């Protein structure tokens, strides 16, 4: 089962959903804290609901307050990159570029993409973590320096 889990993880990396930071967090797991990454991800999805709503509301205003949107997206990007959400992070960067260029359409378009990636990642990670729980804790010989 460990092999399948590893394959699943590799696939998430190969497809660009996750980056190195995800591994960094997995390295922090131990017997006492075997589900740390899952806890972080759960927290992220719960905490970012409010932020997504704020951004949506802000995107309905006319004209757009680009500074405010940029600030929201800075927060979004920050927490997304804290656990290695690569595609989500990329969309955040794209969105901020549009903010700085004052490109309202670009912002709206990119935000739709962002929401897609955000939702897709959530589903994929739900499957991954469910599998990880079944597979049990991984024996770590030593943490690589």
């Amino acid at each position, binding site marked *: 089962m460990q092999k399948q889990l590893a394959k699943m993880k590799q696939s998430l990396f190969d497809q660009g959903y996750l980056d190195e*930071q995800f591994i960094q967090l997995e390295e922090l*797991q*131990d017997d006492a804290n075997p589900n740390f990454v899952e806890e972080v991800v759960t927290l992220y999805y719960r905490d970012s609901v409010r932020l997504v709503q704020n951004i949506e509301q802000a995107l309905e205003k006319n004209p757009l307050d680009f500074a405010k949107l940029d600030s929201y997206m*800075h927060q979004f990007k*920050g*927490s997304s*990159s*804290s*656990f290695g959400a690569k595609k989500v992070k990329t969309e955040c960067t794209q969105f901020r570029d549009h903010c700085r260029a004052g490109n309202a359409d670009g912002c709206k378009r990119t935000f739709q993409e962002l929401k897609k990636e955000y939702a897709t990642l959530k589903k994929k990670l739900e499957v991954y973590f469910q599998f990880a729980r079944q597979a049990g804790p991984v024996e*770590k010989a030593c943490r690589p320096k």
Partner: protein
Amino acid sequence: MGSDCSSAELHVLAVDDSLVDRKVIERLLKISCCKVTTVESGRRALQLLGLDGEKSSVEFDELNVNLIMTDYSMPEMTGYELLKKIKGSSKLCKIPVVVMSSEKVMSRIDRCMEEGAEEFLVKPLKLTDVERVIDFILRGDDKNEKKITTSLKRKTMMMHEDFDSSSSQSSSNWEQPFQKRPKIAQN
């Protein structure tokens, strides 16, 4: 994987408005054998440190903090403003402060270092970043060395920009800022 936490524990106050980041930094610090208190704002941090101008309760006075790690971008009070308040206080100025940010802006880094920050860490944080900071605090390096190496660090950081993209393994932070100078920092 459990580290040997038999040596005296540092008490670290971590300040970050992001719930996710607070969870991560708490874990990183606990693995590094630190006692951790996390707060979501500079104002709250100052309250705990007894610097909010109001009468602190006895238990707050006893909060003995060995290191403060603060995010830079926070609403109301930035990490820089918090740093200034701490360094401007006779009571707290000796506490080392590390500033963290997801944005590597040279002027921001310079400003923080000039205001007395020990380090400027680029997010997302890795365990090696935290371990390096803790090591440094525990060894209690000479303050003078820090002043001399600030400009060197800047050069090192700028040189690292070129190297970062070529190596996926390289940290986005400075490598060994005090212990040994990176080989690339020639001149």
